[in-house]
């Protein structure tokens, strides 16, 4: 144990004495949060949609079949109790819900005017907005078809409600994204160069000729960056709450616990890279090109994963940031509890254990 603390103390000294790097590490999240204020537009295909048809008449069926025909939507479950909708949203199963009132057809025939309620999951405001527009235009098509040759026009009014983020703020979407990105960058890149640096400088040569335990070295390398990254999480959250005006709807403790897990996943990934490479440059390149790019592409933060071809969707599953992005979005914006995100948590946990095991196994106890 004494040895472990000696290692940790040494690692802290390495980190804290490198002032320039430290400045970048703490400055980066702040700058990124402020830069990513831009909304990002994107097209959405095959969004899961649930329909509650309380009318069950010809008029509602016609609209449903039009939606079914659209490539934008997949109907998740045709029959659903209105009470179940909320939970389906929370679990992230659906993006959109369509509710036909019981007297839909009657209203349309007698009053020439009927309403449909459209509920969208606006934790991702771009998607929600776009899906709302798609539904409206489908309904409009149906309305035009109905009105052909009619003297008195029928009007179908879609009542769109944005769930979770009624003002359609762009920020809730990118805060979890930036969080995932910054943590990924700091943790993977910094730890990726940490062990390989000892190999390059030659200190590993002395360290190897000592009774040290590889696991001890691996863990002690990660500890300072864990602390550093937690400080980054705090600063990102403070910025988003006080500067960007975004409340954290879920449990802050849970958010921290999940962030810690994600940080550890990335640290073990960085250490694995560090163990497998032989120069700081290679380690840096791999963590930058090999990690940052997939994180940006596959976390779902900039480009909706639903929209990608199937092979890419499958690849996205191995990107830790994807799972963390879902977790943070769920906690911060939807305010859900652990029950809704245990699967994602388990995936991250599994990745961490796997990477730690691989690092331990691959740790070279000799020079060549």
């Amino acid at each position, binding site marked *: 144990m004494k040895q472990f603390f000696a290692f940790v103390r*040494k690692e802290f*000294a390495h980190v804290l*004495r490198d002032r320039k790097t430290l400045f970048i590490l703490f400055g980066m999240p702040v700058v990124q949060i402020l830069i990513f204020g831009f909304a990002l537009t994107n097209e959405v295909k095959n969004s899961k949609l649930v329909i509650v048809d309380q009318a069950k008449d010809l008029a509602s069926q016609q609209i449903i079949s039009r939606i079914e025909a659209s490539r934008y939507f997949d109907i998740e479950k045709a029959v659903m109790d209105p009470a179940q909708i909320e939970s389906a949203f929370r679990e992230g199963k659906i993006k959109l819900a369509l509710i036909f009132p019981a007297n839909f057809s009657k209203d349309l025939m007698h009053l020439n005017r009927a309403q449909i309620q459209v509920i969208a999951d606006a934790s991702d405001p771009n998607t929600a907005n776009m899906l709302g527009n798609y539904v409206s235009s489908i309904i409009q098509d149906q309305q035009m078809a109905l009105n052909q040759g009619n003297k008195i026009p029928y009007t179908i009014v879609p009542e769109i409600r944005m769930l979770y983020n009624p003002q359609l703020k762009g920020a809730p979407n990118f805060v979890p994204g930036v969080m995932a990105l910054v943590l990924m960058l700091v943790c993977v890149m910094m730890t990726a160069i940490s062990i390989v640096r000892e190999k390059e*400088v*030659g200190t590993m040569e002395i360290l190897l000729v*000592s009774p040290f335990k590889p696991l001890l070295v691996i863990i002690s390398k990660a500890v300072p960056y864990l602390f550093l990254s937690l400080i980054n999480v705090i600063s990102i959250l403070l910025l988003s709450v006080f500067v960007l005006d975004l409340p954290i709807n879920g449990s802050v403790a849970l958010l921290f616990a999940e962030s810690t897990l994600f940080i550890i996943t990335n640290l073990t990934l960085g250490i694995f890279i560090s163990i497998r490479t032989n120069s700081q440059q290679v380690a840096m390149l791999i963590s930058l090109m090999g990690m940052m790019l997939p994180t940006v592409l596959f976390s779902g933060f900039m480009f909706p994963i639903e929209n990608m071809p199937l092979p890419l969707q499958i690849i996205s599953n191995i990107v830790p940031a994807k799972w963390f992005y879902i977790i943070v979005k769920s906690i911060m914006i939807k305010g859900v509890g652990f029950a809704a995100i245990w699967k994602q948590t388990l995936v991250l946990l599994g990745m961490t254990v796997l990477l730690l095991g691989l690092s331990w196994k691959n740790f070279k106890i*000799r020079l060549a």
Partner: protein
Amino acid sequence: MIQVNNITKVYGKEKTLAVNDVSFSVKEGELFGLIGPDGAGKTSIFRMLTTLLLPDGGSATVNGFDIVKDFKQIRNSVGYMPGKFSLYQDLSIEENLNFFATVFNTTVEENYHLIKDIYIQIEPFKKRRAGKLSGGMKQKLALCCALIHKPTVLFLDEPTTGVDPVSRKEFWEMLKRLKAQNITIVVSTPYMDEATLCDRIALIQEGKILSIDTPAAITASYPDELIALKSEKMSALLKALNEFPKIKSVYAFGEYAHAAFQESGVTEEEIKTYLTTQQIALLEFKKIEATIEDCFIGFLKN
């Protein structure tokens, strides 16, 4: 203490033979030197004995422990100072020393008597970071770190390379004091003049050992009578001597040319007359004892 039997090390796809069938043994409390130029295979031998590299052939034991099977025990009981300064540059003298003491499950206080003589010289700068130390101070610190866990065998790979002559002299005095504490020391150096400071030496070149003996025995075994000659025109002198009929070997050695002649020998007069015909004025002519370097050159020529 150390027993090396026919170890071999091969590198890379070209199968470069870095260490070729090397055998030697080191007794307890001995100061053993591996003497040879850069690329002779000294570092490879050190790395195999410190369990950092696996030999491709042969076997060796350190302290009775096999360098392949019992690498953990060896790592616990030896001190190693690599050729390149390998301490943490961003930690201070004190921090480096404390760190290595803790890694080896000991404290600086416990073995302070071992490093005291050396440490007091760098103690005034103990708060200074290792990266900011002079070459001599770095070596002292590295030696302290290698000694702090009271190793039974100390491996020092070219400890005096890149260190000024005064510090080099000091360093060898420190080694003598350590030897007095019954620590077995294996040291390598490219400097032939340091060879005489060892109890026994192995001359090594291109992965092969040329000779192993005490420095005195090695110099005594030099087969020829050696003569040092001096002239103002060194290159002309070497060229002329090379063409001298009775010459056996001649090479530059500092400001002198060292020459060995055939059995019959030569007189100063004979050489002087010959050189005059070549328009070279001989400034000095003296019989000398062969140094380790002369022996080394002699071995290479054979």
